[in-house]
């Protein structure tokens, strides 16, 4: 936050600014990931918490197994259609504020397994994703970088106003419908509130 902006905001209400800074600082400095691994990327996620890379330096080594106590869901690996309802349900059971990192190609788009009949083509069809990390699997450093990017993103979120994040908005949905497993495919194939239909412009 640059000085000019600070002064301006100070005129508007120093309380909100301070609160917002404190709020964002608290959220940013204490992101507890969910103990949730899916596939290959989970191993690199574990490697990130291990001695060499040490995610704990950021205060984020407290992997909580219960979604109630976790802030960050790292989708680390392929989400299959059999698993997708569970992932969405777990995301729903997390308390706000909650963040999602889609780690690796599979989590973003289905990746190399995209052509598979049981592979979900990207978790952001059902839940909003904050940071995407490409790579198969991304290096632990890439996860750390994404983590810092998430922290930056948290820092830039205002507490009030129209730019505020979804969970501070009483009108925005707090519930993300869990897809049903149908006879041939997941139903519906995507949640249109978080996954806009792509416009093709070429």
């Amino acid at each position, binding site marked *: 936050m640059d000085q000019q902006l600070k002064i301006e905001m100070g005129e508007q209400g120093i309380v909100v600014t301070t609160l917002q800074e404190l709020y964002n600082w608290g959220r940013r400095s204490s992101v507890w990931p969910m103990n949730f691994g899916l596939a290959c990327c989970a191993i690199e996620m574990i490697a990130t918490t*291990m001695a060499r890379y040490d995610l704990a330096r950021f205060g984020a080594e407290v992997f909580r197994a219960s979604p109630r106590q976790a802030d960050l869901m790292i989708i680390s690996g392929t989400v*299959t259609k059999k698993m997708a309802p569970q992932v969405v349900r777990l995301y729903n059971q997390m308390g706000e504020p909650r963040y999602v990192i889609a780690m690796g190609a599979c989590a973003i788009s289905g990746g*190399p397994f995209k052509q598979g009949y049981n592979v979900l083509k990207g978790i952001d069809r059902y839940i909003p994703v904050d940071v995407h990390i490409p790579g198969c*699997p991304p290096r632990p450093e890439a996860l750390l970088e994404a983590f810092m990017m998430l922290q930056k993103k948290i820092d830039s979120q205002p507490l009030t106003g129209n730019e505020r994040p979804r969970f501070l908005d009483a009108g925005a949905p707090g519930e993300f419908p869990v897809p049903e497993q149908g006879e041939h495919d997941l139903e519906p194939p995507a949640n249109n509130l978080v996954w806009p239909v792509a416009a093709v412009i070429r």
Partner: protein
Amino acid sequence: MSVLETKMERPPDWNRPTDLQPHGENELLEVSMGPHHPSTHGVFRMDVTLDGERIIRLKPVFGYLHRNHEKLGEGQTYLASMPYTDRLDYFCSLTNNWAYALAVEKLAGIEVPERAQYLRVILAELTRAQNHASSVGFLIQDMGASGTPLMYAFKEREKILDLFESLTGSRMMCNYMRFGGCRVDATPAWLDQTRKVVAGIPAFADEFEALLCENEILMARTQGIGILRPELAVNAGVTGPLLRASGVDYDIRKVDQYGIYDRFDFKVPLGDRWDVYDRFMIRLLELRQSLRILEQALKDIPGGPVMDPKAKIRGFRPKPGEVYGRIEAPKGELGFYLISDGSPNPYRYRVRPPSLINLTILEEMCIGHNVADIVLILGSVDIVLGEVDR
């Protein structure tokens, strides 16, 4: 004396273990452990029925990571499946590479140069070492230690991954072996570095053993738990350290002597009590044996090419036929079954995953034990979901 030489007595119905009856009039609790559970090693699920904390029924549920590996393999060329094999057992991409390369080489009758064979052995044994160390670490983690053994194992694993990366370019998904050899040659500097890392592993193993092996809590938790009788183990197709911990001498490196394993002097440790502690110890002992092989291979490695000059990268079309090739992967017998119809894509591409088949006896091993034990038993089977569900 091998247990198998005695005539095996089979109970009349071995198909399903019988469910236990609850004590008295206890109400049963049906809990599903997984797919999101800290100790299921991924998205595995066990539907358990509990009487108090005692397991009286257990049903494994698979498929949460079913990535259609086989279907994808049938839709693309032989070479294009190679990077996918990395993602089967994502701890041991190099042994997966080898198993697939071996199957294809058998199918097409390709020879592998000497140096490539040595490199394959070195990489496979390094893979085995890191897999066993981290699998033991995960086992202790499941036991509730707050990560320390796992951290030590991963510290060592990082060193081995560094070797993989500097040779193959990637830490985990190496995609290194090709039909008829290896993709790139190892530099002398890499071999020196490998010698250095290998020389450092015994110290790590000593430390690891001092930390764990005689720990009374660990012994009390693992000894006598999850007993797997050898007859059942063989009948259920269990392979790898799990089978050897049940006292059956069956190591494909010795039996098939694929690659150049007949040249190395190593021994196969066997367990006599068939429980979780045996599996834990067998892994540590196999780690030591891998080090022996590594030392010999690093000493003897010859010069020469690493690729069969006749082998083709593009436009590879084996003649029609079929093959089943298998190796001793760190988790057990990893086999590939391929049918070629003469086209560039395999007609049928099948992976025989050790992890899935090793889980056949999970139910038998778990029934009657505690909730706390089943995570251990599962940990001692050492599964990787990428391979179980493919």
